[in-house]
């Protein structure tokens, strides 16, 4: 949801929810949607970020995903890390039930 995005962010990825089951997904460089943040494309700079978000449009039109938006990330040692608490939780699952959500799926 765009309400929590940092408007001044320059390094961003695109996320959405899958229409059919609501699963959190991330836009990859090849234009596909992965369940895992590690597969996400990362864009730098306002133009690249806008272009990345545009790439989400076909999946919306194809009823694959809903509500795509940009969110701030940093990349440290090749690992993509969300900047906000919200996206960290969204990436992993509820902090009070470590047995639920993506965090519970063995690699």
């Amino acid at each position, binding site marked *: 949801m765009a309400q929590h995005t940092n408007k001044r962010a320059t390094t961003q990825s695109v996320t959405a929810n899958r229409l059919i089951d609501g*699963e959190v997904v991330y836009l990859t460089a090849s234009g596909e949607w992965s369940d895992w943040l590690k597969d996400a494309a990362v864009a730098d700079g306002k133009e690249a970020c806008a272009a990345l978000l545009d790439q989400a449009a076909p999946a919306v039109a194809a*009823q694959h995903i*809903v509500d795509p938006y940009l969110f701030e990330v940093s990349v440290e040692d090749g690992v993509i890390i969300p900047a906000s608490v919200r996206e960290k939780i969204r990436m992993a699952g509820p902090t009070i039930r470590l047995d639920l959500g993506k965090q519970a799926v063995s690699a």
Partner: protein
Amino acid sequence: MYRYDEFDTQLVSERVAQFTGQVARRLAGEITEDQFKPLRLMNGVYLQLHAYMLRVAVPYGTLSGKQMHMLAHIARTYDKGYGHFTTRQNIQYNWPALKDIPAILKDLASVEMHAIQTSGNCIRNVTSDQYAGAAAGEIDDPRIWSEIIRQWSTFHPEFTYLPRKFKIAVAGMHEDRAAIRFHDIGIEIVPGKDGKPAFDIYVGGGQGRTPMIAPQIGTAIPADDLITYLEATLRVYNMNGRRDNLYKSRIKILVHAIGADEMRRQVEEEFTRVKEKGALALPDAEIARIRAYFMPPAYETLDDNSPALDKAMADNKAFANWVKTNVSAHKQAGYAIANISLKPVGGVAGDASADQMDVIADLATAYSFDEMRITHEQNITFAHVKKDDLFALWQKLDEVGLGTSNLALITDHIVCPGLDYCALANARSIPISQQIAERFADLDRQHNIGELKIKISGCINACGHHHVGHIGILGVDKKGTEFYQISLGGSADEKASVGDIVGPAFTEEEIVDAIENIVETYLATRQADERFIDTYRRIGKEPFKEKLYATH
């Protein structure tokens, strides 16, 4: 409790078919998400942080054993083995797939349940007093009127696209366990003419960004005029509520803007027009038909004294503690009202596993005439338990982690799902609840502190009712970090009050100590039998503020 007749059943099944069609059209791309969203909301389907969320309606919180078993089945089959009971007496599932929702609705329909109008800008689940039909001093069973309102409001063609959501609550007596003064419409049953009930109508209460206590608009409205009055009120709102600003579109804003007197005048004007037609007058036959579903259960004739209960309490301290906090007096000799706390220390407030739901269902069947109530404080009430049976009931509850003796004590919190689940949240709320509960876990200490209602919200929408907490906690986001703001002195009952913010917010590391400081201040200043809220009302916020910020 109410049972569907063939008409209710047919409507619910047609609704399931209608929504199944809407889901199919969405998946086929015939309608966009923007067009689909209000439709799915009107069927209780949200999109949250991790997944969809389905909110199932539990009309005025009342469930049979069979229905609770079905809720367990749904948790197990379509979700992740648990459900969450809410401040509107409903249940939420956090992980259903959209494609499974038609099947879930079909399962629900098979036990006379649904998810109709549990979201969206329409009239929502009508909530009521969990002690309905059991508490002494009740003027009339509020569930009778809640059911009448439920049917009138279901698929109401005129009120499907209101400026905003609309919540109605009904209390059956002046003692208010349904928080009626914080609802869009709150109804208090009062004695009317000729032994019939009448209604005092409060309009324009609410929490959220702008908490307001509803002023009284209608006085002693006769029973057969109830629906006419509600229709008039909703029409005034639908035509005049603001639609330009999401945060100013509840009826409370309208009432505040034009004033209670003007609101009353407009409602009465419309009421007169609607009443002339007479189409909404409630026939005695229909009132009697619904009343018949809420007759007292087949009580045994018993002594009010239960030696078995007394002995069990003397022999078992843990049980005695439970009776002290969780059991309330019943109007029928030999019976009691038993409350099941869904707030075990270390658990998630308001959650129950599918296995626990199955146990609760069987226990309700065995010990409370096959009926239970979800409370707006996220616990469960068995309204009609024989005193002789309390010990056996408690033992079975205790076996599955449902025997916590903390009703209305400092570890019995109302908590919203917060940032762990909710797309609207700014901060996590559940971990704060858990940390506070852990700090105050000692039962002797809890009993010494006495009644102290903590209510925690993860954002300004106040789904955790923080405005009406004796201690309210609001999670906020300050530059990307979660902070917690404290308010004191709120109350949701007939002595309605909105809590006072005490000062700057606390970090997650500081908040539990802050609660300690508040409790210490209370314990140091309380007089006689004062509960926390009584002391607060006597001494005000300054002593608490001083203690909280002395070294802050």
